């Protein structure tokens, strides 16, 4: 039987390299050895200088009503204004914020659902603009050709290759489904219209 491994006895296997050897090999080795030299030690530093020259910040004008977590006592004095609530996705988000705390899965799942609705609202709206969404340019997928897509992936023992095939399905799948749905709807409408026209012709003949 060989030597007994470390955890079964009190001693610890000595390090492979001495401090001097590490200091010689690695620039700055041990420069922050003393915890007092580490800027986040201790974690909390009451009275730390921050540059703030207020006890409580002046309030940013609210403009339109701003959604907030119900775990907050009030609207924070400063907030982002990048994309106010709007449309059906906005209604879902408003409900998620008003009804559920951050501790509830429903809060986050509704927000993720709203994100998907939001994307489709914007995709559909874009078709009525001079710049409709273009999944080819917006996904940057043409970089596959310019950035060695095949050579970067295969023969390199990358474990993510086993699921990367899902990404195009996730991106293109909904577009294909929407396209097929739209085609089916147009076909159904056309059938209904021609059926009505045929019905009118038959009725005219009967007269």
């Amino acid at each position, binding site marked *: 039987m060989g030597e007994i491994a470390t955890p079964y006895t009190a001693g610890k296997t000595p390090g492979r390299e001495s401090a001097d050897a590490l200091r010689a090999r690695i620039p700055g080795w041990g420069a922050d050895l003393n915890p007092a030299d580490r800027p986040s030690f201790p974690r909390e530093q009451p009275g730390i200088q921050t540059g703030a020259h207020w006890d409580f910040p002046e309030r940013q004008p609210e403009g339109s009503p701003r959604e907030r977590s119900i775990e907050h006592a009030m609207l924070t004095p400063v907030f982002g204004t990048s994309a106010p609530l709007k449309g059906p996705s906005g209604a879902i988000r408003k409900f998620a914020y008003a009804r559920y705390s951050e501790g509830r899965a429903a809060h986050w799942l509704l927000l993720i659902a709203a994100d998907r609705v939001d994307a489709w609202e914007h995709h559909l709206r874009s078709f009525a603009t001079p710049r409709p969404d273009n999944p080819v340019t917006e996904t940057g997928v043409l970089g596959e050709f310019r950035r060695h897509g095949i050579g*970067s992936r295969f023969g390199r023992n990358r474990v993510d290759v086993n699921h990367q095939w899902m990404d195009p399905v996730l991106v293109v799948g909904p577009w294909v489904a929407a396209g097929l749905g739209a085609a089916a709807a147009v076909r159904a409408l056309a059938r209904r219209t021609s059926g009505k026209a045929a019905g009118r012709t038959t009725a005219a003949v009967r007269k």
Partner: protein
Amino acid sequence: MVYRGPYKIRVEEKDIPKIEHPNDAIVRVSTGAICGSDLHLYHGMMPDTRVGTTFGHEFVGVVHEVGPSVQNLAVGDRVMVPFNVYCGSCWFCSRGLFSNCHNVNPNATAVGGIYGYSHTCGGYDGGQAEFVRVPFADVGPSKIPDWMDEEDAVLLTDALPTGYFGAQLGDIAEGDTVVVFGAGPVGLFAAKSSWLMGAGRVIVIDHLEYRLEKARTFAHAETYNFGEYDDIVVHLKRATDFLGADVVIDAVGAEADGNFLQHVTGTKLKLQGGSPVALNWAIDSVRKGGTVSVVGAYGPLFSAVKFGDAVNKGLTLRMNQCPVKRQWPRLFEHIRNGYLKPSDIVTHRIPLEHIAEGYHLFSAKLDGCIKPLIVSTPA
């Protein structure tokens, strides 16, 4: 750039942001970066990521306009801006917990404000743009020292401080064995920083060989490709004489590979706050009584973490978003002393108008990409 839905972004003209609060500044961005955590937004994993928002929490630039109460900055100053939006005066900021500010994010109490990181993080537009609104200009941004390279400065706004902070959370003692999961920018900086704190051995784990090569050359680390082992935890036990590492740092976060089911449920189906593979490996490969430091980003939804093992092993779990500005004075010294050269990890410089390709390149790990910067187009 603006977000158009999962995996889709494009460049659009937006109005130049306005001063919305007396202590705001407007910064004209000169260099930005795509962070690994931006990919969580890009992949549609972060709740309340709204179409039309601009990403980007790593950026430097020039002050274009200041609000009436700004005292420390003037138009024309070159500034670096921490990724944290914070007030400097709330209960948390006044104790140094800048990333946990309570005055800047109405959408959530569990996370502070972050530029360009969804409404869950406050709804602020980010710096992958020509202009960006910077709240609390007297608190967050600092002038870039004359001696500092712009590319080093942009990496000081998140990636380097977060890696350095991750090593600090490990409470590394002299001679400790430190394992870092993830050889992306944060993992590389965490590995490099572990030496500064006196580690005796630093091991980096990833499955991308070109990143492991960088970990060997840039961070002087011993490396293992987990794709080559049936069970990386057992391998790490063997490599540490069956004791386990003293400290393990999770620098991967929500999109960890290594377990198909965890990855797909976490990142593709969004049924978890993220794939906790790296975190579970960290819990299993650290020694009993050891410390796990988490600086990888996870979403707010639950994840299937092996908490029982953490309890039974008596682990210390330490984590937070990095309070960036607290790290700067010491990191400035390390850069001046030549101990750190952050821009050595930059692999790509992409013009803003090609940012969609930049995201795809970084997301799919093409072309040896480790850290892509976004460079402004000359006006």
